[in-house]
């Protein structure tokens, strides 16, 4: 089992400096925004606003094994244990008085918060709670639900228009908050950069079609950080170029994540951030994850000559914002293109968006491709909702059926 060299020391080399920079921005009085996934972060980047993603911070807390301790603080304040563990973890991180338990010194205090309705009810309510406790304003981008699950080319024109009008409203909000004007030229450059990052990331993904696959889920879930959090940066481009070269080289030389690849899996949604070693366990069973939906949904090509329209087209088809058809098509295509023979569909205790509808995905995938799926009851950051013995049992039984 070989880890990609480009990813050695990823946390120290990339995550820590990211939080350090954000703390510096706070110290220097520069604008910082809390932002929720599926939000068009490019606009923030074009205005030199440092984005902080509570979701990313929660996953850091989970990986560092403090998420449950923080979640319990939120629970003692009345936030139900059934709520999204990302939300509980970060609400706890803000309410706690024991600041020394917080990885990377906690999230710096934001100047304002932004979220969209694209992914889940949680985003809007969670950010409302954060905004209340931090006494900072929240802008909500009202994204229409993509009812038919249309892709970028087939979106309803009216939804694109609505999204664009929301972007304009957002820009007005940001200009007021930061006392600056959005520079249209800079926005075009940012869009170009984000597009470049996205293409590089997809290129990296494509090499995973190779048998044996040169990269697994553990590396992907780390490396996706740039794509997700700071896509429009030169750092992201540089990092992905290096990663692309390494993955390409491996693919060419037939070096796989594991040499004896017996099962090629697709992993839907989130991993258990507190237990990324789980993927090593899968590797030991001869299984490698060749694609994650999480590595594909944040991508999308952007056209610098139409910045706002292309942002609408990038974010409206995100499967979190769509009916189940979109998720089915995505997984179906991944399964075909990446030669998968099994699909893992993890639920997430506090997440309706990810958990409901998996049975349809499972049925359709089996009907259309004969590829079986396994639904796993887990949680992204709260290990109290994770029963390792049971999960391993399910995995091993599932793997046996793949043999048959």
């Amino acid at each position: 089992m070989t880890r990609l060299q480009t990813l050695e020391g990823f946390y120290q080399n990339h995550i820590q400096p990211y939080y350090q920079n954000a703390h510096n921005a706070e110290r220097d009085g520069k604008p910082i925004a809390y932002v929720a996934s599926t939000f068009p972060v490019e606009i923030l980047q074009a205005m030199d606003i440092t984005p902080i993603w509570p979701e990313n911070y929660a996953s850091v807390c989970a990986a560092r094994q403090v998420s449950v301790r923080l979640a319990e603080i939120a629970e003692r304040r009345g936030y139900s244990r059934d709520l999204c563990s990302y939300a509980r973890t970060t609400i706890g991180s803000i309410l706690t008085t024991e600041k020394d338990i917080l990885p990377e010194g906690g999230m710096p205090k934001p100047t304002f918060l932004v979220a969209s309705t694209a992914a889940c009810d949680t985003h809007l309510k969670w950010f409302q709670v954060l905004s209340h406790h931090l006494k900072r304003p929240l802008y909500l981008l009202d994204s229409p639900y993509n009812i038919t699950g249309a892709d970028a080319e087939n979106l309803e024109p009216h939804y694109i228009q609505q999204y664009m009008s929301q972007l304009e409203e957002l820009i007005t909000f940001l200009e007021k908050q930061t006392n600056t004007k959005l520079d249209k030229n800079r926005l075009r450059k940012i869009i170009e950069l984000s597009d470049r990052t996205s293409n590089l990331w997809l290129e990296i993904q494509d090499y995973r079609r190779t048998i044996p696959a040169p990269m697994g889920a553990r590396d992907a879930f780390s490396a996706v950080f740039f794509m997700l959090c700071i896509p429009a940066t030169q750092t992201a481009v540089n990092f992905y170029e290096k990663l692309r070269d390494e993955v390409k080289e491996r693919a060419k030389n037939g070096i796989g994540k594991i040499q004896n690849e017996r099962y090629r899996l697709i992993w839907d949604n989130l991993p258990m951030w507190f237990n990324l070693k789980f993927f090593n366990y899968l590797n030991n069973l001869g299984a490698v994850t060749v694609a994650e939906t999480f590595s594909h949904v944040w991508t999308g090509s952007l056209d610098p000559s139409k910045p706002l329209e292309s942002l609408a087209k990038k974010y409206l088809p995100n499967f979190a914002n769509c009916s189940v058809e979109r998720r089915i098509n995505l997984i179906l295509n991944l399964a075909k293109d990446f030669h998968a023979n099994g699909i893992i569909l993890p639920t997430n205790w506090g997440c309706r968006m990810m958990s409901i509808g998996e049975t349809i995905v499972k049925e359709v995938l089996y009907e259309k491709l004969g590829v079986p799926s396994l639904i796993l009851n887990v949680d992204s950051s709260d290990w109290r909702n994770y029963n390792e013995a049971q999960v391993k049992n399910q995995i091993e039984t599932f793997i046996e059926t793949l043999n048959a």
Partner: protein
Amino acid sequence: MQILQSFKNLLHRKHIIAKTWKNQNKRPVVGWNSTYTPEEIISAINALPIRILGSMDTTTTLADAYLPRNACSFARSTFDHALKGDYNYLDGFVTSNSCDNFGKTYDLWRHYTQIPYFHFINTPHTNTPKSSEFLYYELIRFKESLEKHFKTTITNKTLQTAIKTYNENRTFLKQVYNLRRKDPPLLSGVEALEIVLSSMLTTKQAHNKLLKQLLSEVTTRPDPPKPGVRLLITGSIMDTPDLLNITETVGGIAVTDDLCTGTRYFWNLVEANKDPLEAIAKRYINKIPSPFMHDSHRERFNHIKQLIKDYDVEAVIIFLLKFCDTHMFDAPLLTEELKAEGIPVLNIEYEHTRSGIAPIKTRIEAFIEMVKGVP
């Protein structure tokens, strides 16, 4: 009182009544589940819009095969009824973008039931002129979709008539609620809930008749409810009277509510407007918000505080259905704010099943005792 029995009947015999209506009128029955569904438009095609309700007393084994354990059990219960075939008579199903559980179980309804017509209304989450405009467009789309599927036309006139009947119903319901300001209230919480729920299960014309009769008879009712600790009830959907039944047998009396099956359903009228669809869009954007709306807590909490004053409320119970995210996120703040004003609050999380509500009784009883003890 005899008339109260009529409302109860509508609730308990809802399927039979809807089917009979359909046979007699030869017109479609359309189910809906979110308070953000503009029923007026459905009613304008002479269809019967009915709210999809669950029940506490059946197991949900059919739905359990499709839904994970962490889905809202109200959504589970209704979907289970659909799988059992209880809703086979529906000619259509309409939902709105007002809750992840609705949005995602809508996919299941589409895949696993045989209902011939489905429609999703893309309800915005913000209250701005832009979002009203967007909803207006969505309502045009909805109108056209109904016209096409049910081969009919909706005119401004039919819409205006529907609006008038709906507004009348809302006004009557408010009058009914006013009867609960008295001490003891003229209607119990259970009775009031049955009245509101039944309004969603028959035509508004028929319901208006019943309400008129109720309003004329109730002031002299020989059997008024017993006095008790005056409660405001809020939280997730309350689609059966079970919880209020429990509450009202242990010394509480629900005198008002902030529920999507209560005030949030009927509080706001559609205003007069040349363009009825525009007026409807404005009504749904501006109504007392459900918690999925952006920044809705301010307005909703103010609504609650106003009701507390107007209805002489002594204490508040927040009934939270497990996995009802939007309400669960609002509950701690609401609790804090009300307690700061000296109002006792009880938070109860429960599952939408008979066994899920059994353990609640002692907690409510203890709470009521506690409130009574406060001088």
